[in-house]
């Protein structure tokens, strides 16, 4: 009976340990984060059905560390001509009229301590979806990837970025 107790506790302990390990290795990840946006902008409609290339709106992604959230004027390039009128589009036009920027909510938040250069990755022809998930199928954008350091590294490992030594140079991202 004593033995049963011992074995049982061992087994449960192991199970708990495994769970804890899995838990801590996800710490800090906002996976699944999908906040409401001031304008219910549908990527599925624009990037998916209308097939607008990502880089049309996020044009800075090729040359800047920051992909950039398009200015309202960029939206107006089309919506200035399109006649369709919805409440959401109305919000957009108002912001243009009142010259008040739209308070988008950032979905993919890397902590400040890491420097991610969009340009570098886009130029290396890494698909946007590799980090942002199948945005073209999302109505409201959601963070699909863990965006943890381990996750970044695993991708670099898989793609064999740089020699082994360089791959783990901390200052490539942290400074």
């Amino acid at each position, binding site marked *: 009976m004593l033995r049963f107790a011992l074995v049982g506790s061992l087994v449960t302990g192991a199970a708990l340990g495994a769970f804890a390990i899995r838990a801590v*290795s996800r710490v800090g990840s906002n996976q699944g984060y999908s906040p409401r946006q001031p304008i219910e902008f549908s990527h599925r409609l624009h990037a998916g059905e209308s097939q607008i290339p990502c880089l049309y709106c996020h044009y800075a992604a090729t040359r800047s560390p920051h992909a950039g959230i398009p200015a309202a004027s960029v939206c107006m390039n089309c919506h200035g001509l399109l006649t369709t009128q919805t409440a959401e589009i109305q919000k957009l036009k108002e912001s243009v009229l009142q010259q008040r920027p739209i308070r988008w909510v950032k979905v993919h938040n890397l902590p400040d301590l890491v420097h991610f250069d969009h340009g570098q990755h886009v130029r290396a022809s890494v698909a946007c979806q590799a980090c942002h998930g199948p945005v073209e199928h999302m109505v409201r954008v959601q963070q699909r990837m863990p965006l943890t350091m381990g996750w970044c590294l695993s991708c670099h490992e898989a793609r064999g970025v740089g020699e082994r030594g360089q791959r783990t140079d901390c200052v490539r991202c942290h400074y």
Partner: protein
Amino acid sequence: MPGTARRTLTPAVECARPVPLRPAWLEGSLALRQISDDIALPLSARPGAGWFVCIAVSLTALAVGVACVTYQIATGIGTWGLNKSVGWAFDITNFVFWIGIGHAGTLISAILLLFRQHWRMSINRSAEAMTIFAVLCAALFPLIHMGRPWLAFWMMPYPNSRGPLWVNFRSPLVWDVFAINTYLIVSLVFWYFGMLPDFATLRDRAGAGGKKRIYGLLSLGWDGSQRTWSRYETACLLLAGLATPLVISVHSIVSMDFATSILPGWHATIFPPYFVAGAVYSGFGMVMLLLIITRRVMHLQRYITLAHLDRMAKITLLTGSLVAFSYASEWFMAWYGGNADERFVFVNRATGRYAWAFWTMVACNVVIPQCLWLRRVRTSPAALLPIAILINVGMWFERFVIIVTSLHRSYLPSSWVMYYPTSIEIGTLVGSFGLFFTCFLLFIRLLPMIATWEIKGLAAAQARGRS
């Protein structure tokens, strides 16, 4: 029928007559029940005024410490006097000091056990307790000395979301983490094992009620069966055998924090034995301090006799001489090694702005203990008490001298600075003493502070030795 008794007795006595015990480690002959009565008394009786005074002082000190640490963690390490060149001072000094204190306990309980030293029996329990409390105080400082203590767990290799990113197994600080935790755990186990039979005794003494239930739980159903006893003694010997190299390794590793560095005054191969000797030295100083007071306050003169003090004083004298020898060889190497920077650091220690600390250290650690050559001193509590205190002062300053004087005069004179402690640092040091003595004072009230079963065995043996 005495006749038969004699006939049957003699051979038995023959076969089991222990080595005659000289000197007597217990005053007078004690009935077994008498022993447990004496030892169990403090656990039930209302503490005396002396104890209340002590605990009041200790708690006040502890409160000061808690306040200082809270303020420091809330505001930043800047509340200490450290600077661009002196990155460690009071914090690590206290750390090494307390770790050192702990070593005497393990030595008494483990090493003396292996050497079958009967006199350890009256003091090993409290010495082990002291070890544990000292290690607790010590472990406190590496934690709070961090810039971001809340991230202390990063020192442990655990799977994390960073790759995972592990720790630097080359860093002596990581060695410390493992060494100190091992030391703490093994000491705890050893301590608890020692108390198992006593818990059983207390359980059986206690009338039905909460107390009985608690002691019942703690005693794990100990019933004094011979089978358990024999296994028990094996286990204790094994643990002692493990604790002995452990205790030596712990302070060696602590000394490597310095020995493996590149700093003149730190980078010395002699450090491990030097530190171990110093640790035992300061530890015995603390044991004497504690026991001289306790035997008085708790009326345990019969169990902790002058003979005990004499033995401890002798060991103190021995380790003290080892420490003095280490100082000498350190200086010799500084001169003989011919490294200008090393030489400078040592000359600076003796003549620089911190010379006062250095000479305090020499006075307390080298000069004062020489009194212990006199038997009259070794057997007089009144004389030993101040010596014990001074030895601890001296050993604290030894660590201070090693750490601060080396740092404040390192390779580039452009970075030479002075270090002045702040009230926060002093408060934290006071607090650590508060924590230590609070723990100890609670210990002597809540747990049998003398190994009852061992004393019983000793008393019996002593009785037969007399007959």
